[in-house]
């Protein structure tokens, strides 16, 4: 594992822990009506920040990775993830607008994007024979 990948993994672990803390705090706070006005907006947005941070960590990894082939694989993986997430969001949006499916919160796109990384990894395996990596 490259030093850049190790740093990426550590960043993702810390940001995931932060996400869990912010999310649990927000759920607790809203459940017990602790927030109001502007503070409620801050509390609602806080869990989004570590998710954005993970996307940033991916960008940072692409900058720091010295192995150009591995970097290219990760770029391909991210492009597949983006295409996958945007396609699912677009399809779901139309289905939802015609009242054919239930409403899904838009933050789910980020989750679908992370699932798309697995799709990208499988495509790298199928087209280049690269090891599957999520």
């Amino acid at each position, binding site marked *: 594992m490259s030093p850049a990948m190790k740093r990426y993994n550590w960043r993702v672990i810390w940001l995931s822990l932060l996400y869990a803390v912010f999310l649990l705090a927000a759920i607790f706070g809203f459940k017990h009506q602790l927030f109001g006005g502007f503070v409620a907006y801050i509390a609602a947005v806080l869990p989004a920040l570590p998710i954005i941070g993970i996307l940033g960590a991916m960008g940072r990894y692409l900058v720091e990775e010295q192995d150009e082939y591995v970097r290219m694989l990760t770029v391909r993986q991210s492009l597949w993830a983006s295409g996958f997430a945007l396609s699912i969001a677009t399809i779901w949006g139309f289905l939802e607008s015609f009242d054919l499916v239930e409403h899904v919160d838009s933050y789910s796109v980020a989750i679908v994007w992370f699932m798309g990384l697995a799709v990208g990894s499988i495509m790298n395996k199928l087209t280049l024979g690269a*090891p599957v990596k999520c």
Partner: protein
Amino acid sequence: MENRLRVLRAERAWSQQDLAGRLEVSRQSVNAIETGKYDPSLPLAFRIAELFDLPIEDIFVSPSRRSSKAI
């Protein structure tokens, strides 16, 4: 891109891991270049050429020359 990397490596009895270590890249990068699945950047191609002390064109086969030979 077609290349002689595997032959040059074999002549020196280097494993893919040995070559990867000398080039400071991963073993899978060496494998991808050897099998023609990935074309290295110019800086990496120069590093490879300098490692084997050969001109780049003695390691990598120019796609245009390859196609003109085929004609």
